[in-house]
């Protein structure tokens, strides 16, 4: 692999679609320096203007607020570089939907938590998420009482957010639900509060330890658990490297970086197996669309939301708490048509003109075209058509 290919691969995975200029700059400083510069906590992020908090009963006003929050975030995804891509990773990981939370403000509050804690030790992140109003509403923490605990949040917390299947038992789910009782969301203030009298009392046995635990103790048990770091390394790998699980050796090398998201991600991108994942990862629709707008120098189009719906991924509306799929699930006949349509619109709006397949590859930061695709591109003379077909091509869709 040439240095240009190596940094292109790194930039494609760590950001939403690098521009040719960004690749040029990265080639100059080299792979290691690029990696160091990219993985950094975000600077200050401006607060969006959402207007007055709508009446919870006013469905239309709530939807308007949620739509404004999402539009703002799409712009932020395009502007925020690697930092905002990590925020997007955490969003897909703690997959929470506005459809049940019904508040754009609370959804943005959760994203702010990812920006604040998502780059460091996972202990403060997990502690903050157990108090996160959007997550509590999403997984019925609101309804959890000591008389008969509601297991929803406790189960997904261990299965999907911190440990993974196999690392806990059904008894741990029941004990965890007891520990999480007593947290409520005050819809008026948008804050979570601990209502002591609703909380469980008495000791429980949770993940091999017996005692009287509060949420912070529970968070501690989770992040100290031997399954936590390998689980997180897998989750980072499937989003940043390949839908195929990493080797045990790679997991061991990555988790040696310790309990810190930036360190884990840095180790992942520096791992010897990372290079071999080039050309294997299907872009999530958000990555495809935001990347294309960046490379074409366009603002996020008005049409973006409808395009994303057609492609099967609307941010803030994951299909389930399990988040979005990875891999070939995105590669469908209907998504192929949706991608062609979106590509046609993007190409029509683009100010840039490319005249041949080589210039197209450079603009879209594609390492090269296969003979199949090259044969098609060579036959296209119209620059807009060339651009559109490039954006919909297998080589651009799978990076």
């Amino acid at each position, binding site marked *: 692999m040439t240095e240009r290919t190596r940094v292109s691969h790194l930039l494609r995975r760590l950001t939403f679609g690098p521009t040719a200029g960004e690749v040029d700059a990265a080639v100059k400083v080299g792979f290691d320096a690029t990696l160091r510069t990219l993985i950094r906590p975000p600077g200050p992020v401006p607060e969006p203007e959402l207007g007055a908090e709508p009446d919870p009963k006013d469905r239309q006003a709530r939807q308007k607020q949620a739509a404004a929050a999402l539009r703002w975030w799409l712009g932020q995804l395009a502007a925020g570089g690697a930092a905002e891509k990590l925020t997007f990773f955490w969003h897909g990981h703690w997959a929470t939907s506005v*459809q049940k939370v019904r508040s754009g403000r609370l959804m943005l509050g959760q994203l702010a938590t990812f920006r604040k804690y998502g780059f460091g030790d996972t202990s403060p992140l997990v502690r903050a998420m157990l108090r996160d109003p959007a997550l509590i509403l999403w997984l019925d923490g609101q309804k959890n009482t000591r008389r008969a605990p*509601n297991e929803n949040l406790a189960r997904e917390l261990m299965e999907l957010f911190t440990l993974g299947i196999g690392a806990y038992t059904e008894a741990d789910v029941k004990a965890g639900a007891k520990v999480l009782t007593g947290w409520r969301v005050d819809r008026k203030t948008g804050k979570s509060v601990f209502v002591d009298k609703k909380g469980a009392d008495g000791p429980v046995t949770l993940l091999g330890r017996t005692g009287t635990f509060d949420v912070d103790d529970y968070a501690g048990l989770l992040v100290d658990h031997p399954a936590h770091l390998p689980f997180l390394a897998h989750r980072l790998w499937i989003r940043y490297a390949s839908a195929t699980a990493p080797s045990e050796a790679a997991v061991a090398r990555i988790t040696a970086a310790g309990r810190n998201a930036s360190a884990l991600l840095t180790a992942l991108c520096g791992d010897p197996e990372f290079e071999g994942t080039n050309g294997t990862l*299907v872009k999530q629709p958000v990555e495809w669309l935001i990347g294309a707008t960046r490379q074409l120098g366009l603002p996020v189009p008005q049409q973006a939301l409808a395009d994303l719906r057609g492609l*099967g991924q609307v941010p803030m509306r994951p299909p389930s*708490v399990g988040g979005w799929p990875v891999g*070939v699930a995105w590669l*469908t006949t209907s998504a192929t048509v949706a991608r062609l349509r979106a590509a046609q619109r993007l190409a029509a709006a683009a100010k840039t003109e490319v005249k041949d397949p080589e210039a197209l590859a450079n603009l879209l930061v594609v390492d090269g075209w296969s003979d*199949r695709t090259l044969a098609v591109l060579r036959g296209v003379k119209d620059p807009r058509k060339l651009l559109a077909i490039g954006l919909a091509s297998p080589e651009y869709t799978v990076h």
Partner: protein
Amino acid sequence: MDTLTRRRFLIASGVTVAAGAAAYGITDLLKSAGERDPAAKVLVLVTLYGGNDGLNTLIPYGDPAYATARADLAYDPDKLLHLDDHFALNPGLTGLHQLYQRGGLAIVRGVGYPKPDRSHFRSMDIWQTAQPQRPGTTGWLGRWLDAAGGDPRLAVSFEPVLPPLLAGATSAGATVPGGKLTLPAVITPAQVEALGGPVPGESPARARAAACFADLMRVQDLMDDTIAEDDGAEDDDAPATATGGSAPPLDQQLALVARCVEAGVPTRAYSVSLGGFDLHAGGRDAQQSILARLDRPLAAFQQRMAGKGVVVAVYSEFGRRVRANASDGTDHGTASDLFLLGDGVTGGMYGEAPSLTDLDDGDLKYTVDFRDVYAALLHDVLDGDPARTLDGWGGRLEKAL
């Protein structure tokens, strides 16, 4: 067409694929589309995402243990749609109740699998891959599709994202959006076909991305005259739970299936879904309302499809805990009911109802392995070989189909 000829038809389409999609032109397609063998049956698989509470779907109101375990979540027997002096259907299922009385609804009780997993995601993977020990990467309908020749037109869903169910090892079902599948002006059919060509040494994901172009050419005409434009609006009235699924409303999906069946497209298996069953809180009213959202379109669909060789199967990844939680909801459980309806279905109750008192850690013990039901569907509806698709599984649900 007899069974043998029908199989030859399926194999023939597969051979065309293997010979290279580029050689298979749009004109050939127009000739073959719209010509489903009238004798070939069609399977419509309805997935209920989130874990439907089977105990409040087919309700054992005659068992005193039901009211004891469910307290505020139990129904007053007067409110129920009675089937006999022991069982009744949820009040939301009026259409299915009538169908049962006419002998057209088969209810399989206690359906599950060994060592039940209470994770939505693992359990749904198990149901969709039909591999309880270790769910793999192919769905059971995807493997059937591989065996039937891999023509994507044979297995169709209306979601933008492929359900694992329809993913085969060498092929994948087609996902068709609500709108028309017409190509945008920016590309010609010849270019689409060319982009579908294989490249040696390509990564499997990139090869699949290319294959989608080839599949697209074959699917395009399938839906062209069948489907109206989709308005693309979010369904915000749908009950929201954390395991919602992302499909269009069920009535829309079933309307698309009905139009395809009526148009005689070659599709043999459709995957449709309804989400919102993960009712950890406020369960009874919410479940009744969502069951009604299942019942109305399903009953209408059944009437419209009568005599057209369509069989519908309705399942969820698991049932709920026998005992309610304090938020008038239920947590994740195990065995549940499965519905079969349509042409050739012999109504009635099948399988043994699980005991409400002899429990597996608070959950029902399953009495029927779900692979028995799949085997019957594969053999009697899809003309497939159950053992080949179900890793050698030898059981079969008898008499219902």
